[in-house]
């Protein structure tokens, strides 16, 4: 690859790439996102490589491993272009048939198509699947087309055009104005207007400035940043370069989470390729602008995603937040003006620059423009990543895109905003989703985790779960956070183990208030949200635990008892076999011998639920 030294050379290179691509060529794309990896896509890729090599010797048929397509529930996903045939849950043994039938004979394999859950109709194309229909994939859409390790693929879909526009036909101030006008708000959770941040940073004193991409996606249940960095790293890089030009920064950092090895690999490759082609380095495309990006790896601390903690960590210290009387835009990394934005925010920048703020602001609500990627997970049929316009209702996301709750169970709540967010009940399902509406109901946008909960999720247990998380992740600097989260966790444990008292609920509210008010950073500042929002919307569940010592969702172990229903028990003996505590006695019924009905010794029972899970005859009752 040769370094490109002008916009004309880039355009020529792009045309070369496009001219080599035959629009009628059959290309098999296999989703290589982490969800599909967990479902075994690597074996499917290997199988394709093998059959292509053996039967057609690669004869004009392309194989491409792409980034995440989003529909993780149905992985491994395979899309065959140009007809866009969408196969889901593909197994390695399906591969020879796909080749011999679909690719060589043009016949569609019905059994691999997506089946509409209500009509039973088989759907051919990805875009017609209900999961994708209501989505608006302006940021995430290219993931399914490009191989993230090939910069040529990104250029082929128009990559780095926005950079050329920014460098050669816009002044830095104009770029900032455009981003301000687009009202791009931080996608990492805070929702602070990115344009304002950039403007303050540009105006801040000092020659040396930095831009940082926060890829320390720590919210449990959110993985859109991971998929963007894995699936389309150049879009993030392009956004960073444009931002750096607007602010006047010469150096940038991507702070990647320790738990995301593939994201680290792909962004590393992307940076090397961008350097090679001259999108990074000295005198980018002969514009006179110098900028380079480096990688910093996180160490697996949730608070490391807090901006001031992240900056400390890049500088080689522990990730402890500091008081932000002086903002990062004035004094951040190595005490220089620093602009820090999240992965998804950066990925929005090229789109805004290329299509303009007027186009961008047509999408969304008054206060929140554009789209947002959510990870729709938990107790929902179609789990995966969804990109929707701001202002869509929770009901549309959960029921139309998500396909509702599995096993005919009843919806209970949706948790947004990670440990800083809250649980939103059924009565608010028609709430339009944007930054301000979510905050109004006691939750928050956060980085975009959306965890659906059904009747078998205990809300007290969820609150306890988050407090356990936060007490472990609190860095310990502020007493209110360190002790507050710990004490709240203790109280919730008491309640879930049947030792709760009614006045504990007032105490929780009081503790929550102190923790939020007296903590320096937003980890403590928002820590009580999971408790306060569940207390607000699901108080009766707390009261049931306290007054009747009952867990209605049958989750809190200490309050459960397992019993074998003698009339339903077939005396197969499976429960006794799987019981790790040897708490089940009885005698198996065989053809020759009469059995003795099985029963559980409550003294010995450790309430692990193995018997319940393994009983095929629903003969185990939980109370």
């Amino acid at each position: 690859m040769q370094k490109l030294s002008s916009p004309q050379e880039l355009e020529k290179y792009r045309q070369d790439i496009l001219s080599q691509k035959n629009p009628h060529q059959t290309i098999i794309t296999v989703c290589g996102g982490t969800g599909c990896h967990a479902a075994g896509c690597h074996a499917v890729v290997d199988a394709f490589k093998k059959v292509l090599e053996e039967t057609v010797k690669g004869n004009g048929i392309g194989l491409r491993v792409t980034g995440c397509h989003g529909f993780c529930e149905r992985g491994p996903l395979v899309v065959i272009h140009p007809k866009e045939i969408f196969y889901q849950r593909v197994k390695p043994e399906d591969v020879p048939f796909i080749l011999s039938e679909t690719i060589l004979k043009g016949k569609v394999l019905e059994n691999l198509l997506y089946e509409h859950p209500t009509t039973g109709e088989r759907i051919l194309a990805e875009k017609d699947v209900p999961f994708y229909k209501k989505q608006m994939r302006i940021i995430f859409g290219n993931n399914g087309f490009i191989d993230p390790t090939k910069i040529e693929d990104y250029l082929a879909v128009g990559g780095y055009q926005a950079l050329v526009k920014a460098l050669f036909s816009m002044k830095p101030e104009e770029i900032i104005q455009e981003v301000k006008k687009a009202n791009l708000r931080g996608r990492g959770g805070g929702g602070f207007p990115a344009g304002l941040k950039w403007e303050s940073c540009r105006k801040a004193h000092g020659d040396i400035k930095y831009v940082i991409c926060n890829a320390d996606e720590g919210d449990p249940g959110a993985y859109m940043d991971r998929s963007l960095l894995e699936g389309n790293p150049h879009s993030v890089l392009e956004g960073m370069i444009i931002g750096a030009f607007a602010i006047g920064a010469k150096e940038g950092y991507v702070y990647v989470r320790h738990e995301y090895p593939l994201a680290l690999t792909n962004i590393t490759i992307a940076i090397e390729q961008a350097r090679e082609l001259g999108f990074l380095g000295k005198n980018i495309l002969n514009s006179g602008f110098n900028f380079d990006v480096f990688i910093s790896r996180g160490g697996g601390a949730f608070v490391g995603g807090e901006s001031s903690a992240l900056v400390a960590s890049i500088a080689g210290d522990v990730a402890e937040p500091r008081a932000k009387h002086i903002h990062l835009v004035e004094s951040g990394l190595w005490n220089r003006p620093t602009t820090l934005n999240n992965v998804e925010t950066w990925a929005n920048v090229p789109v805004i620059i290329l299509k303009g703020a007027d186009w961008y602001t047509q999408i969304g609500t008054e206060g929140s423009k554009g789209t947002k990627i959510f990870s729709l997970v938990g107790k929902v049929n179609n789990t995966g990543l969804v990109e929707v316009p701001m202002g869509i209702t929770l009901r549309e996301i959960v029921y139309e895109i998500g396909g509702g709750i599995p096993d005919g169970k009843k919806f209970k709540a949706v948790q947004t905003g990670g440990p800083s967010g809250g649980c939103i009940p059924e009565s608010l399902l028609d709430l339009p989703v944007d930054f301000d509406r979510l905050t109004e109901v006691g939750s928050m946008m956060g980085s975009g985790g959306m965890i659906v909960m059904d009747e078998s999720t205990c809300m007290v247990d969820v609150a306890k779960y988050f407090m356990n998380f936060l007490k472990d992740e609190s860095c310990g600097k502020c007493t209110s956070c360190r002790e507050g989260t710990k004490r709240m966790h203790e109280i919730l444990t008491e309640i879930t183990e049947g030792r709760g008292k009614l006045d504990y609920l007032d105490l929780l509210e009081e503790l929550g208030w102190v923790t939020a008010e007296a903590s320096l950073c937003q980890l403590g500042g928002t820590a009580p949200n999971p408790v306060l929002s569940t207390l607000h919307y699901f108080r009766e569940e707390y009261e049931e635990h306290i007054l009747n010592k009952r867990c209605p969702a049958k989750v809190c172990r200490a309050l459960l008892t397992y019993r074998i229903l003698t009339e339903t028990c077939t005396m197969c003996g499976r429960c006794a076999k799987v019981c790790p505590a040897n708490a089940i006695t009885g005698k198996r019924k065989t053809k020759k011998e009469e059995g003795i009905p099985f029963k559980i010794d409550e003294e010995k029972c450790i309430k692990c639920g193995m018997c319940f899970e393994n009983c095929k005859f629903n003969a185990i009752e939980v109370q």
Partner: protein
Amino acid sequence: MTHSEIDTIIKDHGKKESAILAILQDIQSREKYLSKESLEYVGGKLHIPLTKLYRIATFFRAFSLMPRGRHEVCVCMGTACHVRGAQRVLDQIQLELGIRPGETTKDLNFTLETVNCLGVCAAGPVVAINGQYFGKMSPSKVEGTLKKFSEDKKGDKDAKA
């Protein structure tokens, strides 16, 4: 880990204080833990007091001060996995291995860890063993999944023989 190996790592990242996290991460990923000797050597080379190194090594979850087992079992405790029963999967693994999170089995075969979120939420509950993801886990799948890793040790020996 030999001093020259550590020297190479330091050279890769530059002999500066800000590279300390990256250096420790590389040592951790090769040696699977940070030994006292390694920390002392790095501290001496970079003129960083040992107290600061221990501060970093104990702050971040990525580091371990104890030797690790051959196979790392990492149970995701993210919210999506939690509501789908991750705790019961973890309980079952603890029963099977007889160790708690952060501990290593006596035969040094397994180290058990929990993680706040692996970002494979759609497939939850998820367990990662040596970085390989096992999705849609349940307590009854635990035994079979772990077996794959207690047996491959024998498999290796057979292959060599």
